[in-house]
């Protein structure tokens, strides 16, 4: 079993299963902060998937996109929490 087969048949399905579980929480989430933290977690898992995919395709350029996704995750969480807090203020 080569490295590519192992990544394709073991790691990617585990990450896909965790994406499905987080997305269930994103749909169910009773309050707005639940959805925000589920969105944050989705972007973080996609960073992991990008890392595995860059190994599979042997192209290191994808790791730049993972760094960009980390920035987007932090900025979206900070902006969402700021506006959640300001929404209550009259």
């Amino acid at each position: 079993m080569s490295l590519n087969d192992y990544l394709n048949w073991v790691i990617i399905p585990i990450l896909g299963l965790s994406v499905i579980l987080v997305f269930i929480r994103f749909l169910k989430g009773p309050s707005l902060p639940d959805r925000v933290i589920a969105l944050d977690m989705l972007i973080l898992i996609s960073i992991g998937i990008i890392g595995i995919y860059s190994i599979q395709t042997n192209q290191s350029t994808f790791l730049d996109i993972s760094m960009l996704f980390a920035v987007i995750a932090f900025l979206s969480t900070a902006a969402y929490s700021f506006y959640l807090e300001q929404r209550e203020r009259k």
Partner: protein
Amino acid sequence: MKDILIIVLSTFGALFILSSSVGLLRKPDVFLRISVTGKASTLGIGLVLVSSALFFNNYSVTTRVIATIIFLFLTISIGGHLLARAAYIIKTPVWKGTKIDDLSGQYDEVTHELYSENHDSSIKPEKSENNI
């Protein structure tokens, strides 16, 4: 040898990410979910990124990966703290099994300022009846 190391690191990383998402689905409260996401997913994503850095094995990729990991370690905890504070201020109900709430009666309701002693017009979140 390098392949075995990559396999071990990526397996542990994926398992940590899976445990974090199971916790995100099954925990009964917003604050517990934020706590779960902040702890397990940083380690999992760090391990997956370290395995990809081991695969490419040159300086430019390794520095990019280390920068990403440091940025993630800093920002996941800060984002979790910001989101938990916002969730507390907009009065998200806490789990009924919560024993200690140190912030109860400390945040001012209008100005959202934190006081160290008990305050008159302060936020006291109610407890939810069932698991949400």
